[in-house]
């Protein structure tokens, strides 16, 4: 057991911290980034070697362990840096193609994903397939001799309005059992029959999109893995998402908590006993979350699988973030009534308070996650038939 970086990790962290400090001198939570700025930021990250940290060297990555990815997400969160614009390509699609893709697919897509030239989105969820993802209805009809036509609707797709390609789950075998008739495809987002429109969230932002597919064409060469094996490909994609995702979320919450402390001082609530008690509980639980993430990372390093305790990270993170944002608004008293330019921090906390409501839903609802812990960790009998 050692709670410190080893010398190589410490060097990586120091170098990254310097690089970030030169690029982002101060954390300004109310800053908004234009697409052009995000593209530039992402190009610079790639050029500096901070894209594909855990990708194998043969595919242009740095071949480092998840511990380095954890350092990367901690330091970028601390600096208030935005995501790489191709985060879905880098963290989900790339690893999926490395595991399941053909040599042609790897050669065609991986270099562009790393450089940020080829942007990806993901098309899994549908209006009728949320928690029950295997219920996807988007159909892939055979179009002889060498392709399929896609019809259906995908929702909650981040970056779809910018993406060049989409990793998409569709039904190739409508007569087969639910989990067997699915196939994963790489869809060209510029193809005819692909229409993207923004989904407006309850806080007014548009982080996600709807994708309507009308006879959109994919070729046999665009199948990822085997036809009919899309469910296991999708599960491996989601597993990649959950790999260091918990650590990413936690690192951002640590930065968010620092902002909360800044707000406590700004409004002069340092001596309010109720505020102090809530801060202590939130901070202690946040440290519990953080060190549970490190425990999971150590298990990942030893066995290649995150430990059972990793299943609690997203669950606990979402509830803590909601509490942090709720306290931030309570601290503002009647000023919490304002929003936008008239509110403190240009309405940052108002937006976060509303946005955080989705935290217990997106990326696996708390109910689904509790079910997973109950069955797979506690070994309780399955709740659904």
């Amino acid at each position: 057991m050692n709670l410190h970086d080893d010398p190589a990790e410490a060097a990586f962290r120091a170098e990254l911290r310097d690089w970030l400090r030169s690029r982002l001198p101060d954390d300004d939570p109310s800053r908004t980034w234009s697409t052009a700025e995000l593209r530039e930021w992402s190009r610079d990250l790639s050029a500096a070697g901070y894209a594909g940290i855990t990708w194998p060297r043969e595919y242009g990555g740095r071949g480092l362990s998840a511990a380095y990815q954890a350092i990367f997400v901690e330091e970028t969160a601390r600096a208030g840096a935005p995501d790489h614009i191709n985060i879905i390509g880098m963290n989900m699609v790339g690893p999926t193609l490395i595991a399941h893709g053909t040599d042609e697919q790897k050669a065609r897509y991986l270099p562009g994903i790393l450089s940020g030239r080829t942007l990806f989105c993901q098309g899994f969820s549908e209006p009728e397939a949320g928690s029950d993802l295997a219920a996807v209805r988007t159909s892939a009809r055979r179009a002889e001799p060498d392709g399929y036509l896609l019809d259906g609707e995908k929702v909650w797709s981040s970056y779809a309005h910018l993406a060049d390609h989409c990793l998409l789950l569709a039904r190739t075998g409508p007569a087969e059992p639910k989990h067997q008739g699915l196939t994963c495809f790489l869809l060209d987002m510029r193809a005819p029959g692909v229409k993207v429109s923004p989904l407006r969230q309850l806080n007014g932002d548009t982080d996600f999109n709807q994708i309507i597919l009308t006879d959109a064409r994919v070729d046999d060469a665009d199948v990822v893995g085997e036809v009919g094996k899309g469910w296991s490909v999708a599960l491996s994609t989601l597993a990649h998402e959950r790999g260091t995702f918990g650590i990413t979320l936690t690192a951002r919450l640590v930065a968010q908590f620092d902002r909360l402390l800044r707000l406590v001082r700004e409004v002069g609530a340092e001596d309010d006993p109720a505020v102090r008690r809530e801060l202590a509980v939130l901070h202690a639980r946040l440290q519990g979350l953080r060190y549970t993430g490190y425990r999971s990372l150590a298990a990942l390093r030893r066995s290649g699988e995150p430990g059972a305790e990793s299943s609690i990270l997203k669950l606990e993170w979402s509830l803590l973030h909601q509490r942090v944002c709720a306290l931030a608004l309570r601290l503002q008293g009647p000023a919490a009534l304002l929003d936008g330019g008239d509110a403190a921090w240009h309405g940052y906390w108002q937006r976060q308070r509303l946005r955080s409501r989705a935290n217990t839903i997106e990326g696996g609802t708390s109910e689904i996650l509790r079910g997973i812990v109950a069955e797979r960790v506690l070994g309780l009998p399955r709740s659904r038939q």
Partner: protein
Amino acid sequence: MDFALTDEQREIRQAARDHLERHYPPLRVCALAEGPGGSEAGAWPELIRQGWLDDDLGMVELTLLAEESGRCLHPTPWWTTVALAAPYARAAGEQLTVPATFADGGGTVRPARSPQGWTLTGQVAAVPQAGAVRCLVVRADTDQGPAVFACDTGSAGLVVAELSTLDTLRRMARVRCDGTPARLLVGPDRAAEAARTARLRGGVLLAAEAVGVAAGALDMAVAHARQREQFGRPIGSFQAVAHQLTEAYVDTESARSLAYRAAWLVQHEPEAGAQAVDEAVLVARSAAVRTCETAIQITGGMGVTWEYPLHRWLRRALWLEAYPGFGDDPHDRVAERLLRRADPDEITPTAPDGR
């Protein structure tokens, strides 16, 4: 960073669990709880043979033993010995090998010096396990300031009167001494430092025991939810039941991470450990109480009977929540360090993010 137990630490934990499960199944623990001493005096030589009082056990190893002890409510005075008394013996360069506990006689016990040595006179209202131990470590105020003494429970003028106690496996007792011979363990010059270290070590082991109490109660509730059937199904298949157990699991794992982290820091960077210990105590105490309450809820009508063992775990959780031995409510200390940053180094236990 490598936040994982070593193979040797895993072996220590497994050996402890095997030993405790063999000797202390719940029914035996319940019988001892209702017996005269609330603890098994004859077990001590075996604990020594098994290495539970070895001098070279680190904080992480002690944490694992305390956790396993909490899991099955290990009914000996081992916890009071290592968590409360041993840190003072350690500060004096001694090793404690007899069952012991700590009595805070600050303001109520008066030391006196005679040509034959020190004597203590006064009383301490509530001392954990005083009736089950052979050595009392007593804090008392000398003219030069607080100091720490050790005395044998069989010494002249010492009267131990057991009190009715919420957790009968860790009974409180009133200790009176009247000219009782005692040995100076830590003089006034070093008593403050010894007390600080004792608070850190004791806090870690309190958190560790709380984690074990939570884990033991959760295990019992999960086993019950797997086999108990109602409406023709095991009740663990109902989401309303399963999700409550999941919440308890989240609390317990979070507390465990904090306890291990605090143990490592107290061992390797004691000056950095205070915040980590407070955080571990705060989360682990509430995890223990909440998990025991959940476990009783899940075991239903059975869980609220005297015969069903779970109330023993709840009593221990409530004991740990109320035990005042390590200073004021940790919430306020945690908040104070966050807001004032009076001692910023103290809250920088690891490199990652500067807190």
